[in-house]
């Protein structure tokens, strides 16, 4: 404490210095000291991102475009598929390098979202089940969502180093909250009388969880997933400050050179990616019931293929029968 100034009751804070900033800087020292401990996690993250990135780059753009459009058709219907295809063509036409950069960004986002689901879903379920846990985790989520990213960029870089791994970590910190919150909300929103009925018919707590609560909370959980994906994309530019590659880096470099044109290209690329991911995941949120209560494999391209297979099988059967009758 710095007590050299005279204490004034009317303005007490000026004379009290708890040295919080200096102490907090210890986090940096701690991070540097513990770099070794974090190494296995870093390797795991690094491999995961690397593999996803390599896979996305290995597929030729045309095939990837068709593949994404098919996924959109399967999950969200024909209209969304057309929109997704149009968006992806626009993305490719933005710049000769845009597609490759977008795939890098997509790899980062996918890695972050997968890890968010692994961490966030169990936390959300716990929060939905326990009021105490919900009360405890809430301020943490608030902090993660609102604290400026620049505050934790430095400690994370000290701990993990620059590159894609730290990029994914800061993205998780920022994007995790909505998934946890909405999972909890979804679980809490399940009709208690249905849960009671499940209990009355002898379901165990885990059966109630997997057969009743999670299925009924699914639309809300998917809304949370959608928000998490959107927030991940909005971290792309900030993450590029710690040497994450991709569209965000393009925007950052263009900013440094006051190159408005390049910034617009990078920015539009991010927006298009966001639209594509948003439409596809929003389609996920609609349950099969709203699409005419069919199973997911009965609609979209897979349904089409299955129907064709079925028809050809029937026809071969019929021709065999006719053949049999003829002989």
């Amino acid at each position, binding site marked *: 404490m710095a007590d050299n100034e005279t204490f004034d009751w009317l303005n007490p804070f000026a004379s009290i210095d708890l040295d919080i900033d200096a102490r907090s800087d210890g986090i940096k020292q701690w991070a540097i000291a513990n770099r070794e401990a974090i190494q296995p996690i870093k390797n795991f993250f690094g491999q995961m991102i690397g593999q996803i990135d390599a896979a996305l780059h290995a597929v030729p753009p045309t095939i990837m475009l068709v593949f994404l459009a098919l996924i959109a058709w399967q999950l969200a219907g024909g209209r969304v598929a057309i929109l997704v295809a149009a968006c992806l063509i626009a993305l490719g036409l933005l710049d000769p390098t845009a597609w490759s950069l977008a795939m890098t960004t997509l790899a980062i986002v996918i890695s972050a979202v997968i890890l968010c689901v692994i961490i966030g879903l169990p936390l959300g379920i716990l929060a939905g089940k326990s009021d105490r846990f919900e009360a405890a985790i809430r301020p943490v989520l608030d902090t993660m969502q609102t604290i400026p990213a620049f505050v934790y960029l430095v400690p994370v870089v000290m701990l993990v180093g620059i590159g894609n791994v730290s990029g994914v970590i800061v993205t998780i910190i920022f994007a995790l909250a909505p998934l946890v919150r909405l999972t909890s909300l979804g679980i809490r929103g399940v009709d208690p009388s249905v849960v009671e009925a*499940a209990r009355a018919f002898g379901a165990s707590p885990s059966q109630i969880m997997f057969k009743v609560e999670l299925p009924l909370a699914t639309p809300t959980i998917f809304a949370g997933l959608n928000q998490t994906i959107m927030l991940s994309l909005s971290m792309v530019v900030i993450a590029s400050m710690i040497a994450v590659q991709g569209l965000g880096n393009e925007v950052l470099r263009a900013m440094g050179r006051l190159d408005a044109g390049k910034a617009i290209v990078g920015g539009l690329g991010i927006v298009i990616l966001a639209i594509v991911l948003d439409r596809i995941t929003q389609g996920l949120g609609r349950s099969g019931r709203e699409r005419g209560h069919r199973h997911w494999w009965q609609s979209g391209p897979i349904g089409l293929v299955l129907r064709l297979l079925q028809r050809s099988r029937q026809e071969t059967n019929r021709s065999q029968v006719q053949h049999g009758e003829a002989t």
Partner: protein
Amino acid sequence: MTGNSREVVIRCDGIWKIFGVQSQQAMDAVRSQGLSKDEIRDRCNCIVGVRDASFSVARGEIFCIMGLSGSGKSTLIRHINRLIEPTAGSVFIEDQNVNAMSQRELRALRAEKIGMVFQNMALMPHRSVRDNVVFALEVRGVAEAERVKVAKRAIDAVELTGWDQKYPDELSGGMQQRVGLARAIAADPTILLMDEPFSALDPLIRRQLQTTFMELSAELHKTTVFITHDLDEAIRIGDRIAIMKDGVLVQIGTPEEIVTQPADDYVADFVAGISKLDLVTAARIMQPFAQYCQANGQTDPGQWPVAKPEDKLNTLVDLAIGTDHPILVKAEGASVGVVTKKALLRGIQGREDVAPATMGAQ
């Protein structure tokens, strides 16, 4: 049809349920000082849900619990399958103490022995009708093929054939409750718990479902606890009726007993509007034959219409219309009693207790 002669399936022994943080202290205070409901509320900040309820239900019997909303009947029925833990007292099902069971035993009991129907149906919206119906079998790990078979049987029994692949929100309210009924009987349980199953339906559908239920019940012979706030329904369905008020079972008896001998003013008010025609028997309103002879001198009952003791007022009215004589009640060939016009009219009014006095004055 009292349960005494037959095997008891459900027995509730002094069930108390007090809601609130200090429920146990409240319970102790009740035991030592005999506090009333309001005193418990004011002193312990606890609400009494059920107050010292004891009853037993025999095999195959339909036991109706009747009371207005807030009387604690839904709370009471949930003690039977231990969805609610009692503050004091215990429930026995086939002489097994439900409150002493482990969670595993309890789940087995719920899935195999008890079927439950809820007022708001509580069907699972994400499951098809068939998957809803066989939920209890699914949680017990019954194989798919067997489930399909059982589901078909249960769905056919409630006349919903062909709807098994639909989802609950495609069904009307009455059909949804049929699914609820099918779900309850699918696992072929010993006991059915019906928590106001037909209250949310409109009168016509309600009557239809009551009929379906009574047919099913006659066929399957399940021990049933049936909650309702509708006395007509209780009388129509129940072998015995318990009237509940403020958490207390005020009176337990056959429909006839409840209607003709209400235990207190509360029950009397309740049954005042009930038509006695199909409820009260000749045995209830007749005057013993000997007493009648004493009061009226020797009579020749040769021309009198004859009724059986278990004949209802409706039948007696039909008999009385054709003649000016009183009605002779005969059991196994012997004349046991006489129903006079006065007694009959009083009986229809539901005031047969004054009849003998009037007769005496003649």
